[in-house]
C-alpha cells in the first residue's frame, strides 16, 4: 500500500529549476531515501512534501489524500531537521509531550506515550533533565522522539546525521534502522552520504540536478546502476571509470582501454547481440576497486601488469593506486604486507563485475 505518492513534482526558484518532474512512491512501513549531491533538489523535494514549499507543478498524495494544497500541519507528516528542533529550556519530558499537548491529548495518554517512546529511545533516565544541557546524541533522540510520538503517517528526515561525529553516526544508523523496523514507521530520508542511504533504506532514489536518475533497492543500485552518475555516486571507494573502445579480434569482442595497450577480452559472452550494436564504439568501463584482483605473480586470467604508485591505508583494507598511463586504477584489498609502493603487480578484472556504459551514459552489460 502506498503511503506517499509523488507525481511529476516540479519546483522553480526564479530561473532555477530545483526539482524537475520528480515522481516516486513510498510504501507503508518502507524506509525510502532521496540520495544525491548537495544542490540536487532532494531537500527541496522533501520540503514540498512537508508543505514548507509549494510546488509549481505536480501532486503529493499521502495515504490516498491529495495534500498538495494543504498546510504542513494538516498533512500528517513529521519533519526532523539537521539542526534538530529541541526546545532547550524545557525538560525532555516536556519536549516529547509537546506535540501531543498541542493536539489536546488527555494527560494520562500523554504520559503513557512519552514513557513508551522514552523507553525505546533510551531516554528514560533523562526525562526530567533540561534538554538544552544534554549532549548531541541525546538531543537527536529527543528530536526523533518528538516526531515519532505524534504518530505521523510519514516521517521526513533532512540529513539529520550530518553534524554528528563518525562513531555516533555509525551507531545511529543501526539504531534508526532497527527502530524503524520495530515500530514499522514509514520514513522518507534525505542524505548526501551514499553509505548512509545504503545501510538504512529499503529503496533509494538517486537524484542529480533536480531529476531522479534511478530508484531501486541498495543492492540493485549497487550492482545494476543504469547511469554512469549512479555507478560513480554509489560505492566507496569510488568506482573506476575507464574510457575504452569495443573492438573485435578474431571474432571475439574485446575492450581496448584508451591510451593503453590493455585489452580485456570478453570471450564468449552471452551478450553478443547487445555488444554487436556497439561494435567499434566508445564505451565506458566501470569496475569497482573491491572487485579488482591483484597478484604478485602472473596467473591465468590476469589482464595486465602495473606499478603500485600509492597505497592508502583504510584500517583493515588498503586502497592501492595502480598506474595506468596518465592516471591510475584503484583496487581495494584486505591488509597485505607484501604489497609496497613501487612494486610491479598483475591485475585482473573479473568479467562478471564489469559495468559497461555507452559514452553517452547508459548501461549495457553487467
Amino acid at each position, binding site marked *: 500500500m502506498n503511503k506517499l505518492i509523488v507525481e511529476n513534482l516540479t519546483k522553480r526558484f526564479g530561473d532555477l529549476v530545483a526539482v524537475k518532474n520528480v515522481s516516486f512512491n513510498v510504501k507503508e512501513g518502507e524506509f525510502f531515501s532521496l540520495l544525491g*549531491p*548537495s544542490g540536487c533538489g532532494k531537500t527541496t523535494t522533501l520540503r514540498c512534501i512537508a508543505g514548507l514549499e509549494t510546488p509549481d507543478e505536480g501532486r503529493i498524495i499521502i495515504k490516498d489524500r491529495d495534500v498538495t494544497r494543504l498546510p504542513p500541519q494538516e498533512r500528517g507528516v513529521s519533519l526532523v531537521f539537521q539542526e534538530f528542533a529541541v526546545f532547550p529550556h524545557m525538560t525532555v519530558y516536556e519536549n516529547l509531550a509537546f506535540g501531543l499537548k498541542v493536539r489536546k491529548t488527555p494527560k494520562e495518554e500523554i504520559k503513557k506515550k512519552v514513557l513508551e517512546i522514552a523507553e525505546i529511545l533510551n531516554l528514560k533516565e533523562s526525562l526530567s533533565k533540561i534538554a538544552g544541557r544534554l549532549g*548531541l546524541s541525546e538531543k537527536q533522540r529527543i528530536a526523533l522522539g518528538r516526531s515519532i510520538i505524534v504518530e505521523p503517517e510519514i516521517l521526513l528526515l533532512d540529513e539529520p546525521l550530518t553534524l554528528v*561525529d*563518525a*562513531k555516533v553516526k*555509525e*551507531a545511529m*544508523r*543501526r539504531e534508526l*534502522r*532497527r527502530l524503524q*523496523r520495530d515500530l514499522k514507521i514509514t520514513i522518507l530520508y534525505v542524505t*548526501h*552520504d*551514499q*553509505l*548512509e542511504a*545504503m*545501510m*538504512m533504506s529499503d529503496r533509494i532514489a538517486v537524484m542529480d540536478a533536480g531529476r531522479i536518475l534511478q530508484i531501486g533497492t*541498495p*543492492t540493485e543500485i*549497487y550492482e545494476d546502476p543504469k547511469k554512469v552518475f549512479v555507478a560513480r*555516486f*554509489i*560505492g*566507496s*571507494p*569510488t568506482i573506476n571509470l575507464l574510457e575504452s573502445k569495443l573492438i573485435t579480434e578474431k571474432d571475439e569482442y574485446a575492450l581496448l582501454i584508451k591510451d593503453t595497450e590493455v585489452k580485456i577480452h570478453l570471450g564468449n559472452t552471452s551478450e553478443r547481440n547487445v555488444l554487436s550494436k556497439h561494435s567499434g564504439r566508445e564505451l565506458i568501463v566501470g569496475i*569497482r576497486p*573491491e*572487485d579488482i584482483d591483484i597478484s604478485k605473480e602472473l596467473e591465468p586470467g590476469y589482464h595486465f601488469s602495473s606499478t603500485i604508485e*600509492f597505497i*592508502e*591505508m*583504510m*584500517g*583493515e583494507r588498503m*586502497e592501492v593506486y595502480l598506474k595506468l598511463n596518465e592516471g591510475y586504477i584503484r583496487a581495494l584489498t584486505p*591488509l597485505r604486507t607484501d604489497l609496497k609502493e613501487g612494486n610491479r603487480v598483475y591485475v585482473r578484472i573479473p568479467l562478471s563485475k564489469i559495468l559497461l556504459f555507452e559514452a553517452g551514459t547508459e548501461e549495457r552489460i553487467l
Partner: protein
Amino acid sequence: MVYLEVKNISKKFGEVTVLRNISFEVNQGEIFAIAGPPGAGKTTLLKILAGLINPDEGVIYLEGRNITGISPSERNIGMVFEMPPVYPDRTGFENIAFPLRLQKLPKDKIEKRVYEIAELLGIKHLLNRIPTTYSGGEYQRVALARALVRNPRILLLDEPLRNLDAKIQESMRSWLKRIQRELKTTVIYSTHDPLDAMAIGDRVSILIDGSIKQLGSPTEVYSSPVSLEVAEYTSIPALNILKGKIREVDQNLVEIDINGILRIRKKLIKPITREFREKEVIIGIRPREIDISEVGPSENTVVCKLVLVQTIGSENLITVEIDRYLLRALSKKKLTLTEGSNIFLTLNPDRIYLFDPETGAALYF
C-alpha cells in the same frame, strides 16, 4: 628528522583539564594525524601549536628552536580551522594574497606567488571569483592555498573535510595527500573520524580525554591497539565487547570461555603471566573478524539470531543477537535468510583482542 617536538603540554580551562601531559614528535615532510572523539582536545592542541592559546605547562620545539612563548605570527605556521578564513567580500586572489600583503611584499612577488600556489592546487579558475560562488570543495582549497602561500614550516589542519559531502571528502582526502607529497609540507591533521586519520596519516595518534593513548603507523594502531579504549575508538562499525574467562590448558594453549556462549581455544605466542591464568578478561572482536554463515557449525561456532542486515555495497553489516547481547559482523557473503532466523557465527581465536578488565590494557599472548 625530527621537525616538531612537543613536550608535556598541559592545559586547563577553569576546572576542566583539557590536555594532559601531551608529548610527541613530528618528522619533516610527514602527515601526522590526530584522531579523537569530539571534546578530546584536538582543536585546543592545534591552537596551542599555532600560538593562539598558551599552554599551562610544556614546551614546543620547531626545528630545534623553542617557540613556546612566541606569538603566532612569528611562528610561520599555516592553519586551516573550522571556519576557514575565506572572506566573502573579496576575490579568491585577494584572499590568498592576504597574508602576503600583510608582510608588505612587493606587488609582483605577491602575484607570482599566488599564481604559483593556485596552479599547484588547481584553483586558478577561482582567483577572479568571489567565495559565495564556490562549492564546498573549492572553498576548502582556497583556504588551503591561503595557508600554504607563505610557505609555512608546518600546516595545521583542524577537521578540514568536515563540511563536505561524503563523496567529496573521499576525493579531497586523496587530493590532499597527493598535494602534500609534492609540496613536502609537514602536516598535522586532526579529525574525529579514526578511518579518516588512518587513511591520510603517515603516523596516527589517538587523543582521548586529553591524553595521547597510542601513537604509531596506521597499521600498528589499528592491528595492535594498546587498550580497549583505542580498539573501541578505531573500530567502525563498533567493536564487539564481551566478557570472558581464561583457563590455561597447557603451556601453549588457553581456553577462553566467552560468557558461557562459546569456548574457543587459542594458541599462545608467548606464555601468559601468572595473574591471568583463570582470570576474567574483556574480549574485543572487530566486526570484520566475525564470520557469519548460513551453513552448519564447525569449530568455534555458535548459533545466534539474525537481527538486522544492512548492505554497504560489497559487504553487509549484520547485527545478530545471542543471549541478550548484540553483535555486529561484516561479511561479503550474500545472505538469503530473513531477520529473525538462526544463523551461525564463527570466531577466529587469533583475531580477538583481550583486555585487562581493570586497566583496559591490551593483553597480547
